[in-house]
């Protein structure tokens, strides 16, 4: 009857069939996506999570450009072995200012999410320029060019912060105005080290795991 003839119409009309398939798969997608859009825990910053400073934001862009997330994850999983090795497992609210997040999916090197304060700035410098000078068995590539490139030329920092502001990151107008000055005289190496030294510092280790 009507059920059957609708079925027939769908089967015989390719356009309708495609439309029908899209509707059905969209329902499957929406069921998963819609609840997440309203999930408070994904929008509320954990601990002292703050928007990235101008320098750290630039460092983050260098991290992305050099493909660090190909070999390093930024997510400590809620497992004892990880908590014992790296520190408190990663909370969703720590990534509210990560666009996009850099969780990564493969660990050729160690996880970096709780890296803040583990090494000195000097160590990071020599290690990035020549990893094997401090860790002989390391397979990490060297990034010697970071030392010579000025941090202020990694894109337009004010534009970046304005876009993020529009997306809801609470940058103040003062912060955006002061941004170019903060990058003045810094190299890409400085910016990257600044980014690495604040990774995962929003959650206190005493509250471990």
């Amino acid at each position, binding site marked *: 009857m009507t059920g059957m003839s609708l079925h027939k119409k769908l089967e015989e009309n390719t356009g309708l069939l495609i439309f029908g398939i899209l509707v059905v798969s969209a329902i499957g997608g929406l069921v998963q996506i819609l609840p997440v859009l309203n999930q408070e825990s994904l929008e509320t910053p954990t601990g002292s999570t703050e928007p990235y400073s101008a320098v750290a934001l630039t460092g983050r862009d260098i991290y992305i450009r050099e493909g660090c997330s190909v070999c390093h994850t930024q997510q400590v999983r809620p497992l004892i072995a990880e908590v014992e090795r790296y520190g408190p497992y990663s909370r969703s609210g720590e990534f509210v200012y990560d666009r996009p997040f850099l969780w990564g999916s493969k660990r050729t090197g160690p996880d970096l999410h709780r890296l803040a304060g583990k090494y*000195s700035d000097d160590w990071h410098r020599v290690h990035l320029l020549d990893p094997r000078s401090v860790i002989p068995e390391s397979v990490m590539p060297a990034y010697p060019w970071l030392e010579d490139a000025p941090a202020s030329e990694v894109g337009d920092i004010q534009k970046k912060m304005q876009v993020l502001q529009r997306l809801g990151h609470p940058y103040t107008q003062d912060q955006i105005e002061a941004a170019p000055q903060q990058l003045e005289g810094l190299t890409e190496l400085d910016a990257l080290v600044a980014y690495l030294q604040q990774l995962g510092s929003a959650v206190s280790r005493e509250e471990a*795991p």
Partner: protein
Amino acid sequence: MVLTLVSAAVVGWLIWSVYFSPTPHEPEEELNEPVWDGDMREGNAPAPMWWFWLILGATVFSVGYLMLYPGLGSFSGMLNWSQDARVSNAYEHYQNQFQPVREEILAASLEELQSSSERMNTASRLFARECAACHGRDAGGQLSMFPDLTDQEWQWGATAEQVEQTLRSGRRASMPAWSGVIEESQIEPLVDYVIAMDDSDAEQMPGRAVYMTYCVACHGAEGEGNAMFGAPSLQDDDWLYGGDRASVLTSIAAGRAGVMPAFDDRLNDAQIRLLVAWLTREQ
């Protein structure tokens, strides 16, 4: 929650319509339908029953699951299960498991720990994991930047208490940059004096006066250093940043700011005690 229930209802309707409400076929409609194997046409055979039982089983399972575990909106489930609690409990259990050993380590004297090869092996592994990235696998220091921990020279003090303090809170050395403070013409003589300090005739050198004005507060009148500020001794031949003229000149003109990170919240008390014992052992 609404979404979950709506989805469940839709699935229920689908099953009902497939098994319990077969669409009657109009004869004239069937004329235009394709026929296979003589009598097989669309919609004239019910879906297999094993498939129905499979779905029924899955439904029963999912109802049970939704009652026990979180899944229905904000309802946290009758078992009160949460990922956070799972890790916390497992971690607590893990910590408790090692508590007796830790207490044993904390109760033992440094000498006892040092004479136990088992304890020292643990400490050595701990060092490889936590400290070797900077100080090297053999603790011999690296790169004119990270100090040798096997010698007698301890910038921040060699006693167990001082080493423990260094491990727990970290250290932040701050040799200021003297370029611009000390007159350009006086820096060279100062470098000469600092290098030659342990010689007997150094007293007569012109750099001594400069030294006594700017450097004496931290490094002491005889260059003996002061572990309180992490000011190294200048009398010996041990130079963290290099003892050649150029390196000493850089140290004075541009300053040095070595940083030892704090390990208080990365290591537990027993681990720190083991490391202190390992670092201060006779070698």
